[in-house]
């Protein structure tokens, strides 16, 4: 059993807007094991991004408040860490890639400066000059995949040394001393002609290139956990495919755990080891990716898979799920999916949905929050 990088336990997040208060994420528990890619999939407005941003505590609090639960990063409960200490964990501990590559780079700085800043942050932390509330970092798992040449930087284990004057001086080296390392990361994300890119401003790059730069920035900090919040959603289909291919290759090269958020089932199917399906702020199904996609055990997952466009279906209209995601300030009683569920029975309305439980007859670790999980395979 590999240790968990992050385990979220019973996390609930409320938004207080005006007089109203609604629960965007309710009672979600999930683990990201070391070296694995965990995907979260769900419709728009089901709390995926809120969950992703809550883990490194990037949600603006207020209006968001963490109502209950723990976010364990190693042995630290991030919910209890005071806000001013969080920057020490972000970056080298938990890094993030965002949806909007257009605005996620500072428009006033050249690409070099932005990447160099990320590398400097890591170097300063490696040099031991600043206090870090994180536990001792373990080395990277070398057994998972063979090392390619470009990933040489990333294979170096991140073990913080003691303070030395030399290390501190090196960490603070200004322009252009970090140039080699910056170029190496730009090469890692397959940017052609990185020498030219260095001196350009973000607005001079295309969307795909900007997202590559963002990925390079996140990776250059060698994070223990990388949260990718719909990294391909804002890109057009061709660039989306390129970035996705890149991420898939990098997952093999970079030994970091990834929490991959997407509304796109195809993206999740190609990248993740384990998938969690979210609906209306709740995690309804969690398990190994192959089992979830071949043998879904929650009616919502089944309906989602049927609604996805595929190459195999050539006739007839696309399937849809009737109705829409409920208003989270007034969620339906009982199971939140019952108004749209083909399996719904009186008990679904009367009683809340069961906790995530291992489904009988499914693969190990395949858990579902449905009273009738065993009947789902019989659905059309």
């Amino acid at each position: 059993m590999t240790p968990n990088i992050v385990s979220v336990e019973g996390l609930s997040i409320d938004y207080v807007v005006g007089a109203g208060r609604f629960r965007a994420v309710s009672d979600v528990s999930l683990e990201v094991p070391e070296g694995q890619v965990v995907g979260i999939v769900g419709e728009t407005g089901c709390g995926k991004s809120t969950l992703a941003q809550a883990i490194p505590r990037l949600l603006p609090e207020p209006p968001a408040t963490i109502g209950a639960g723990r976010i364990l990063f190693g042995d630290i409960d991030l919910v209890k860490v005071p806000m001013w200490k969080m920057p020490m964990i972000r970056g080298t501990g938990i890094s993030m890639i965002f949806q909007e590559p257009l605005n996620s780079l500072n428009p006033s700085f050249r690409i070099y400066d932005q990447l160099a800043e990320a590398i400097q942050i890591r170097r300063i932390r490696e040099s031991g000059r600043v206090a870090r509330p994180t536990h001792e970092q373990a080395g990277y798992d070398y057994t998972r995949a063979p090392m390619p040449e470009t990933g040489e930087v990333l294979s170096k284990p991140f073990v913080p040394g003691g303070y030395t004057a030399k290390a501190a001086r090196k960490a603070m080296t200004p322009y252009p001393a970090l140039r080699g390392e910056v170029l190496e990361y730009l090469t890692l994300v397959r940017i052609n002609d990185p020498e030219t890119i260095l001196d350009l401003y973000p607005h001079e790059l295309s969307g795909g290139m900007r997202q590559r730069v963002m990925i390079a920035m996140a990776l250059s900090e060698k994070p223990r956990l990388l949260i990718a919040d719909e990294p391909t959603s804002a890109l057009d289909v061709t660039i989306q495919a390129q970035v996705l291919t890149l991420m898939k290759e990098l997952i093999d090269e970079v030994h970091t755990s990834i929490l991959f958020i997407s509304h796109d089932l195809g993206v999740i199917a190609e990248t993740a080891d384990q998938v969690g399906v979210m609906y209306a702020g709740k995690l309804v199904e969690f398990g190994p990716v192959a089992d979830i996609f071949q043998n879904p055990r929650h009616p919502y997952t089944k309906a989602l898979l049927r609604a996805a466009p595929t190459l195999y279906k050539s006739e007839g209209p696309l399937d849809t799920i009737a109705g829409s995601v409920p208003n989270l300030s007034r969620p339906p009683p009982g199971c939140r999916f019952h108004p749209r569920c083909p399996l719904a029975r009186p008990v679904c309305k009367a009683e809340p949905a069961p906790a995530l439980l291992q489904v009988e007859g499914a693969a190990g670790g395949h858990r579902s929050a449905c009273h009738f999980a065993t009947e789902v395979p019989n659905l059309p």
Partner: protein
Amino acid sequence: MAFEEAPQTSGDRAKGYLRSAGHSTRMFLRVMRANPLTFIGFIMVVAICAVAVIMLTAPHLLTPYGNNDPTTDYAAPPSWQHPMGTDSGGLDIYAEVLYAVPVDLFIAMAIAGVALLFGGALGLIAGFWDEPGTAGGWASVIILRITDIFLSFPSLILALAIAVSLGRGIWQLIVAILVTWWPYYVRLVRGEVLAIKHLPYVTAARAAGVANTRIVSRHIVRNVLEPVVVYFTLDIGTVLVTLSTIGFVGLGLNYPITPEWGSMISTYQGAGLITAYPWTVLGPGLAIFVTVLAFSLLGDGLRDILDPRSRRVLAGEGGGPSTSVAEKQEEAQDTAAEISPPEVAEGSEGGPAPVPSAAGGGSGS
């Protein structure tokens, strides 16, 4: 590519700095050529500053007369010897206007500069640390309410009242105007910070582990700078006008002893002098006009220069090589994608499950 960077000598570093300095000079000149009005403003501002420096160090290069040094011509109209004429006391107006350049420029820049630094710093704090309930939130509330109190007075009247109570003198004048001047910078900077601090790149910087103080000092200040510097440049002109107004009502500097344009006009406009010797007010009036115009012209174009997006376009670099680099790369990657489409990669060995294609899932959310 080597991981260890080559050892750097201080010579290398100096060379690098020199190269980048040369590059930015060329860029600056190109932008200036593309924007002639700004260029005129820039030349005028440089000339005015040069005059100020000359008048402080070697005034005889520009005028043969000393400050407050009467000639033997009384109330003479403009001539080659006295380009702006003389007043009834025999003072050469041209010489007095020149002696006033460093005084006026210093007062205007000191007021606008201190207001920018002080008000700007308060604005940054009030804008960035504004979560209610925290210490920063309280600080922000206090700063803003104090700002409101100062803004609720008519600023010119307040400045006049303070000028009266403090008496005459350069420092008294600076303090009097400054008291009414800083709140505008608090408001301006706070507004800009509020607009910027929730932009995705600030969140991205936070996600990268950048500490709050560094986010403010690096990411926010750099992006607030653009409108603020423009406002500052235009503001120097406004301060000059206010300064002259206070001088005009007779509360400014003691004219014949300390030359200052507003006080000059004030001295000469009284007792029917303005109709008898109109050139006495034309000289200082022209000086105020030219200086304000210079800073306004410069300020207008400064925005384009500070913004990297428009700077490259103005410099004629943006449309050319850089975009073509982006396009070239896009093309190269397009062809790469065609050769090995990611959709048919080995990732889907799962089998008959309805695994949708990666690219086909749609990009709208």
